[in-house]
């Protein structure tokens, strides 16, 4: 039993629930005092620190008076979060009513004229907070995937060939530090000029934000992939040569598997960067996601605005944390398989 616990330990740590281990060990009767100390270390201290943070926040917030009222404390933010859920439910009710009205209207039109052209139009109400979270996730994944599709092959080429590496290195160094705010106007104009369609499948603002995410997030993947490929054991490459594998087979059988751990390190960094720049991109591109939510609330300037923005801050943070954990888990998985 305790051997099993030791085996699952790294996986639990990756998932961020490493503190389960001491509890499991206590359950199996493994020296309780040592495990309790471990539990305190892993779970107690973070919880106490969190409570301390909340207390300091509540104390400081009460003293800061802005023109939009006091800086909201934890309680106000919690209330705002609950009201966002209530608003979400109310909006869903309105949506149901909208479709019901439309159905009646369509039925009437059909009754009057059986050949009438009836369609179901999409709901015209506002996106709720949860819709906005989903839009943000969809945008960041689109941008991130586009980035990965460009960065991984390019990185493999750069890692395999010193010439390619020397050619793209200056470009990478120049573009890597550019902020999304600098890209956005250019991307906006290019998307408006190039993406012309009378019935667009995707909103322009969505594409603009996604491409901005791509431009800012592809660099870590590119650099790490190149590094990973370049540092493959020379013996392995020689084996490939001896076996006279063709180039593609070499890439897929030898290069990619050996470079996977670093590629995933790059992807993980990229997703983190992408999520961070997305909010800025959405604010300016008016893509209906969390960034726009923050911007709209700032514009509203109501007495609840700051609390609602803080809810978004925590949402952004928690989602960013979860995304990172997922990537870390994937990274751990491929690292293990690569080492087998």
């Amino acid at each position, binding site marked *: 039993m305790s051997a099993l616990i030791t085996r699952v330990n790294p996986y639990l740590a990756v998932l961020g629930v490493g503190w389960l281990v001491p509890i499991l060990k206590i359950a199996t009767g493994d020296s309780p005092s040592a495990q309790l100390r471990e539990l305190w270390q892993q779970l107690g201290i973070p919880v106490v620190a969190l409570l301390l943070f909340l207390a300091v926040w509540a104390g400081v917030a009460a003293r800061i008076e802005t*023109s939009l009222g006091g800086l909201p404390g934890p309680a106000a933010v919690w209330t705002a979060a609950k009201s966002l859920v209530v608003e979400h439910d109310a909006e869903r009710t309105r949506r149901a009513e909208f479709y019901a009205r439309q159905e009646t209207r369509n039925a009437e039109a059909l009754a009057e004229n059986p050949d009438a052209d009836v369609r179901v139009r999409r709901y015209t109400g506002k996106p709720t907070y949860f819709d906005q979270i989903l839009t943000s996730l969809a945008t960041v994944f689109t941008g991130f995937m586009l980035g990965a599709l460009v960065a991984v092959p390019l990185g493999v080429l750069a890692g395999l060939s010193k010439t390619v590496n020397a050619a793209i290195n200056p470009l990478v160094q120049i573009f890597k530090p550019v902020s999304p705010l600098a890209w956005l106007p250019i991307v906006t104009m290019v998307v408006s000029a190039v993406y012309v369609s009378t019935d667009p499948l995707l909103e322009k603002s969505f594409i603009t934000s996604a491409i901005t995410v791509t431009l800012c997030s592809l660099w870590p993947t590119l650099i790490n992939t190149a590094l990973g490929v370049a540092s493959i054991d020379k013996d392995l490459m020689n084996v490939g040569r001896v076996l006279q594998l063709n180039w593609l087979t070499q890439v897929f059988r030898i290069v990619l598997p050996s470079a996977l751990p670093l590629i995933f390190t790059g992807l993980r960094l990229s997703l983190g960067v992408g999520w961070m720049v997305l909010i800025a991109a959405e604010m*300016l591109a008016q893509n209906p996601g969390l960034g726009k939510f923050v911007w*709209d*609330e700032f514009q509203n300037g*109501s007495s609840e605005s700051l609390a609602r923005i803080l809810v978004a801050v925590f949402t952004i943070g928690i989602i960013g944390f979860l995304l990172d954990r997922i990537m870390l888990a994937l990274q751990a998985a491929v690292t293990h398989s690569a080492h087998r």
Partner: protein
Amino acid sequence: MRHLAPVLASVAAIVAMGAEGEQLALEQDELKFGFIKLTDMAPLAVAYELGYFEDEGLYVTLEPQANWKVLLDRVITGELDGAHMLAGQPIAATIGFGTNARVVTAFSMDLNGNAITVSNEVWRAMKAHVPVGADGKPVHPIKADALKPVVESYRAAGKPFNMAMVFPVSTHNYELRYWLAAGGIHPGYYSASDVSGQIGADVLLSVTPPPQMPATLEAGTIFGYSVGEPWNQQAVIKGVGVPVITDYEIWKNNPEKVFGVTAGWAEANPNTHLAVVKALIRAAMWLDANNNANRREAVEMLARPEYVGADEAVIANSMTGTFEYERGDARPVPDFNVFFRHFATYPHYSDAVWYLTQMRRWGQIAERKPDDWYAATAKSVYKPDVYLQAARLLVAQGLAKESDFPWTSDGYREPTGDFIDGVVYDGRSPNAYLESLAIGLKGDDLPSAAELVTAE
């Protein structure tokens, strides 16, 4: 005859019920309209919330925009089908100032609704020059004469006196300029090569998006601003500034926002355009019905985060017919927001001509234009025929009264002297009007700094 009226009304109602099934043949029924978070977007919110759009078979999405430039650009590129616009925007776009695209309007959204706010510090300095009435309160309207010594003292101390408005072709810019110039303060000229609008200026005007006005004032970047509601009342309630004058006092019942679409869109979707205008007229009627009886409900709608989003109390301040100047000094201004009375929604050519005269006055139009150019430009942007067609349909459906609309108007309001300086405006003779304004370009004047020296 009196007995006949109810009968006629019920006949009209029956006709209406019959007519309701016969909706206009819409070219497009899913539309997206943009707006800026200001109380005068109300007709759009009301038409949506009360189902007036759906009554016309229109499925409309309303979307707040970041600022006036983004809004106009998105209408021009077709991302938005139409939008709540500054009256100057379709006109400026059409004559090629700022951008170049044909934008038209068949519906004026409201009259009045703006004010000028100054920072607490400036107000304290101004107050010494404002006459006090028998009740111990400052006498309104407050002229810019009271601001002049303050501006002079800032300039003497070497500090630029900055004020903000919302857009170069906004009503707010022209109103602020009008008020300043009427008090002998020069707001500066635009020229073809210098679009800052600060040539020869005593007060430096710059652009800030409406919702950011109070925060920018509080930060000390600007000393005052001209903006629509609720951003003046917001300054009072947050204690960051004092509104000194409403635009109702600068020019009684001045035209404000319009509903703008591109000329291309209007030509491709004539029936949809009519249907939209019908819904908006109904919304405007509702907003002004029974002496503003519905305003409370409208305030509740506008306070929702997806529309204006400011606190209800702030929006209610001006929407319900009062206006709070200094904190505690609330005065009745029943016509502060007019949505339908005084034929507010009819797109008057004379309104467009007034904006054109102000563009000429401040150099946005760099050279002299003949009177008939003003009339022709107004005609190419304002579309009263579409408006009256929509009105006719509403009357036929029994949803509006014959007397609600100026059927026989030639598009020009009567000449009026309802300005703070009493200068009479007649839309039929714009050049003569420009001559009658003391500060500003007229005749063949060029907006150069040298010109200014000789003018003084």
